[in-house]
Structure formats: C-alpha cells, structure tokens
C-alpha cells in the first residue's frame, strides 16, 4: 500500500465510527439540504439549467487556448500584469517576488483553494510575512493550523465551543460561544489587518474571457475588502476557470449559490478588471493575476475525463457523498476532497499514489446526479480504477488474479453459479459463529459491517416455481 493509501485507511477507520463527528456533519448538511432543495425549485427548470451549464463549460474547456488568450489580452490591456506558472514552485516564486518588490510585511488573503494547492501560506511565512486568512472559516482553521475541511465550509467540523476555545487560546478574546459574538471578535481583529496589509491575495471563481475580468463569489465581504484596501492585489487562478462571456454569469452565479450554500445568490459577486482606473476613488495601484497550470493540462489531455475541469467548486458532490459524510474532509489528505477530489487528484498528483480514492466509493452516483455542470463523476472514478490497473500503468496483484481466475468459470456456468449460491446460503448459517473475528475469511469487510443474507430463493428458482 502506498503511504497516502495507508494514511487514508488509518484516518477513515478512526473517523467513520466517531458518532460525534457524524452528528456535526449530519446537522450541518441537514440545514443545507433543505435550503438547496427549495432553491432548485425556484428555478423554472433546474435540469435544463444544468444542461446549459454543461454546454457552456464544454465550450469553455474545449477551446481553452482561445479563451485563455483572449482573457489575458483583455486584462493586460487595462493595466494588469499577467504571470504564467506551470507548477506550484513557479507560482510561489512569482508571488514571493511581488511581495519582495513591494517590501510586504502583512498579507491579507481571501479564500483560494489554489493557494492551498501550492502551499502558499507556508512559503510566505517562511519569507517573513504575516499572513492572515480573512474568510471566517479559513481564519478559524488557520488559527488551529489545520487544512480546510470542505471546499465551501472550511470549519464545518468544529462546534462553537471548539471555536471559542481556539479564539481564547490564540486571540485571548472570546467572551461567549455565541456564533454572533465569535464572528464579531474575528471582525474586529481582521478590520485592522485589512488596513495594515500591504498586499491582498484572492482566488477566483470565474475568469471572463470576453471582458478580461475575474469573478469572486463570497458572503462575508472579506474578498471585497482584500481587493479594495491594500496597495497591491494578486489573484491566483487556475487556467481552467475561464468562461467565454460576461453574460454566462447570469447562469453560473445563481447556480453556484444554490449548490454551494442554498442561497439565491451569495452576498457579494464581484468582478475585477484591473487596478484602480483613472477617475476611481480607490483600489490597488497594481494588480497581478497569476495563471496556474499545475497539471491541469494533464487532466485536459484525458478527453474522457476532461469535463472534470468544468468544476465550479460548489462542494455539492461532497455534501451528498456517503463516503465524505463518513470519513470527513480531512481523511482524503488532498486539497480537493470528496468525489471531485477523488477524480482529479490522481491527475494532479499521480495515479498510483492516489488511486485508492477512486476505490473508496460505493459508486452510488449521487455526485453525478447533483453536479450543476454535469461532470460524470462516478464514471470517472471507475475509469481511474481501470486506468490504475491498465497494463501500461500498473498490474493486478497475485490474489486479484487468482480471485478472478476462480470467479470467471463460476460466473460463466449456470450450474456452478447455482451450486455456489446454495453453498453460500448454507455457509452463511455458520458464519455468525466467526463473523468479524480473525477466523472469518471476510473479516476485512465484516469487522465493521453487517452482511446481507443471501436470498432464500434465487431469481431463477422463483421463476421456475412461478412457471410450474
């Protein structure tokens, strides 16, 4: 087993039976599901909207070169400096270079999963900067030195009591565990930071080719302040985020809100097309946009799974995923968790090290059914499984080969098949004696799970009886 797979198994075993963890996630998801479903009904035709979104993303991703060039040209024309980074190291050194040139001491950040991907905070702190995450959830996990738990809700695994404790320990300020009081503590602390910060760093939800703009979706106003107050602004964005036209947002902004948080529209949906322009009251003097590949082109080269680049990071597939809900966001050990993370991480970080994620799935298809841009998530998990054992990339182990050698003749012969199920039915009577113990040949499965009884009568037997 590879190290990430071993860690995954270890963490999953620890988290899955943790009923307290499960309770927290269930409560949070329960609230989300209610509002999400109401909002879907608010659309005249939600399924139709998903089709349009999928079509738009297909056009965007399959002509990525054209749209990306147009995006860069339009943004540059209005005074933005564009940087290109093939990998994480290049992206870090570009950003560190800007911080150095600006002699930056305090950096304020709004939520950016891309920055997790390139381990930006560590690099900036090592370079001597104070880095402050400004999204409340991100700020909480930053204080706790944890990675975000979820794409949209970074601190959803924590109770108010735990957050109060964190604030008491790290900020020496948290009079009560009331969510409103706690939010106001963070508001007070961060206000100062926005004003002090030399540089503001943001992520992006969309990059509009037609007009050369970055679109940022948020609820708190932290990204708006990050983009308004510091003298220098940097946006780190994956190259796959382009949308062809400004008007495409009329569809994508509400869809992202509905699936992300169950809102009609998130509180602030803001477009940035450059630094402060002549005649404007404020805004950064310099605007830098860093376009990040970091193996996105590897995923692009896989025509079968290319649609995964259309992901708008709404988190909806995580929310419906029985695996995510049981093992939790941290167990994945990846920047992008849940079904979409299991699909793309093998492309971004290597199939052999991350193939186990594609096996940690019941293939129920809930993710595919919910995805607003209709990414064929559960089939991609299957394709990853197939690719992991394709002759060119890997080979099955001796026991897998033996198992299938034994299985094939049984499955091919009706007589053997019926005999095996009869034996199984008989064997199951005694299984109870050893179930879950070391003597149980199926221990790996039965230790933590019930086994469904084999039906008393097979379908063929039932048919025969009916016909006679």
């Amino acid at each position, binding site marked *: 087993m590879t190290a990430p797979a071993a860690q995954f198994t270890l963490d999953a075993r620890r988290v899955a039976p943790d009923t307290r963890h499960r309770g927290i996630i269930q409560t949070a998801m329960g609230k989300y599901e209610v509002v999400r479903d109401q909002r879907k009904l608010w659309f005249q035709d939600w399924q139709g909207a998903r089709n349009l979104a999928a079509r*738009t993303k297909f056009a965007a991703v399959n002509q990525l070169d054209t749209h990306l060039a147009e995006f860069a040209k339009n943004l540059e024309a209005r005074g933005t400096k564009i940087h290109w980074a093939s990998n994480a190291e290049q992206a870090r050194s570009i950003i560190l270079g800007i911080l150095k040139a600006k002699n930056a001491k305090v950096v304020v950040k709004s939520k950016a999963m891309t920055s997790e991907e390139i381990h930006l905070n560590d690099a900036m702190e090592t370079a001597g900067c104070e880095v402050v995450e400004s999204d409340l959830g991100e700020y909480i996990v930053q204080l706790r030195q944890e990675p975000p738990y979820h794409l949209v809700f970074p601190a959803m695994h924590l109770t108010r009591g735990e957050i109060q404790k964190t604030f008491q320990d790290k900020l020496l300020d948290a009079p009560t565990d009331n969510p409103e009081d706690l939010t106001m503590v963070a508001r007070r602390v961060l206000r100062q930071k926005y004003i002090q910060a030399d540089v503001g760093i943001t992520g992006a939800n969309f990059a509009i080719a037609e007009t050369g703009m970055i679109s940022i979706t948020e609820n708190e106003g932290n990204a708006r302040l990050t983009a308004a107050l510091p003298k220098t602004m940097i946006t780190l964005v994956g190259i796959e985020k382009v949308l062809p036209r400004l008007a495409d947002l009329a569809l994508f902004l509400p869809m992202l809100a509905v699936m992300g948080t169950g809102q009609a529209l998130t509180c602030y949906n803001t477009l940035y097309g450059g630094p402060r322009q002549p005649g404007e009251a404020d805004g950064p003097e310099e605007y830098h946009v860093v376009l990040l590949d970091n193996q996105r082109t590897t995923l692009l080269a896989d*025509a079968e799974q*290319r649609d995964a680049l259309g992901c708008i990071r709404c988190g909806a597939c995580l929310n419906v995923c029985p695996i995510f809900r049981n093992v939790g966001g941290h167990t994945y050990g990846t920047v992008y968790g849940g079904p979409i993370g299991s699909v793309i991480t093998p492309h971004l970080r290597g199939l052999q090290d991350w193939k186990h994620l594609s096996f940690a799935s019941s293939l129920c298809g809930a993710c595919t059914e919910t995805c607003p841009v209709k990414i064929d998530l559960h089939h991609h998990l299957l394709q990853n499984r197939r690719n992991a054992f394709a002759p060119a990339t890997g080979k099955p182990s001796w026991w897998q080969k033996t198992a299938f050698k034994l299985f094939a003749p049984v499955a091919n012969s009706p007589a053997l098949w019926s005999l095996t199920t009869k034996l199984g039915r008989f064997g199951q009577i005694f299984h109870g004696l050893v179930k879950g113990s070391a003597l149980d040949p199926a221990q790996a499965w039965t230790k933590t799970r019930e086994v469904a009884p084999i039906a008393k009568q097979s379908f063929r037997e039932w048919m025969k009886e009916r016909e006679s």
Partner: protein
Amino acid sequence: MSERENIFTRIREALTVKAHAHHGATLPTTAEHRAVLPAVGATTAEQVALFTKNASDLRANFQPVTDTAALTAALIALRDAEKWRRVAVHPGALAQPQVAALGVPTLVADGTATKEELGQCDAGITECDALVAQTGSVLVTSRSAGGRALSCLPPHHIVIARRAQVVADLPAAFALLAQKYGGNYPSMISFITGPSRTGDIERILVLGAHGPKQLSIFLLD
C-alpha cells in the same frame, strides 16, 4: 520558451484529442438562460414587488420614498436611530446633496479620503447601477459607488436608487452593463445581495461578517 508558451503548447496538444459533447457544445442564448432561470414578472410594478420581497428575505431594509424631501427625512431618522457621527458619500448628483441636511461631518469618496478615515464612518451612502428584481441584488460599480471600499467598509451601506433603475433579471443586468460601459468597464463591478453574512460557525446565520451589517435601499419614484 516562455512559461506562457509552454502552457499554450500543452493545452493545444491536449486538445488535439476531441472530447465527446454529451450535452452539446454551443454557448446558450439569453433566451435559453431566461427559460431556465427563476421567473420574473414583466411589469415594473411586479418587479418592484419581487424586489421588495427578496430584500426582506435577505434582511435588507428596502424603502420606497416619494421624493427627495422624504428621502432626506428618512436619512435623518436613521442618523438619529443609529447616532451617526460621521458619514461618507459617493460624489454623485443623487447622493451627495443628501448629506448636507444630516449635519454630521462628511467624507466625500472622491479619492482624497484615507482608508483609516473611511473605516471610522458610521455609514457609506452610494448610488447604484441597477436593482435586480430576480435576486434582490444591488448592482454597484467603482464608478457609481465611490470606488471599492465605500460600499463595503462602513457598517451601514445606504443605496439611493431610482425606480427606473429596477431591472428584471440577471441577463438584463449584464446587458445593461455592456450597454453602459462596453469597452470601458469600471475596475470593480459588484452584485450586492443583502447585508454581509456568514454561516461558518455551525451553519448559523450571522449578519455583518466583514462587510456592512446593514443594507438600506431607498427607491425614489
């Protein structure tokens, strides 16, 4: 080769293998967007009614006013209720004349005020580009709202809009932006949908996370 060229080379190589367009490959038209998006009535009266309902769901304070005198009176009432000591205003024909009657020190967001000063204001008064009935959003830009910070830094954001600025839906709002600014867009465009909020602690709604705790929208007939 520059990194830009490297990336473009990889993209073009990757795209030589064609993907199957399961759901189609053409960009949808505005009519197609409208056919799936939430429905909005055709008349201004219906749209204002929808905006009113959305604003109240969002916990924004929406108040139609008959004329500028009524607007001034409403602002003075807010000043007294919240004990404003200092306000900031967008230098526009609709907003700026309103502050004289308030009788409190005023900052004009024309590029001369510092962020520290702006941060001490109790309210930021702006105009807007449109009100979107479909979502209850206020569309502002760095040109209609005194730059980027005025509509976000003070704890109370006050918007003064005209009835003619109400648009039906998001496609209409984007069409308006293209028509009004096409070719020379402001550097910031924002759809503000209710006061700032967060649900990051146990998914419990708290207003006023980092942006304004209150959003008041006055609609002039």
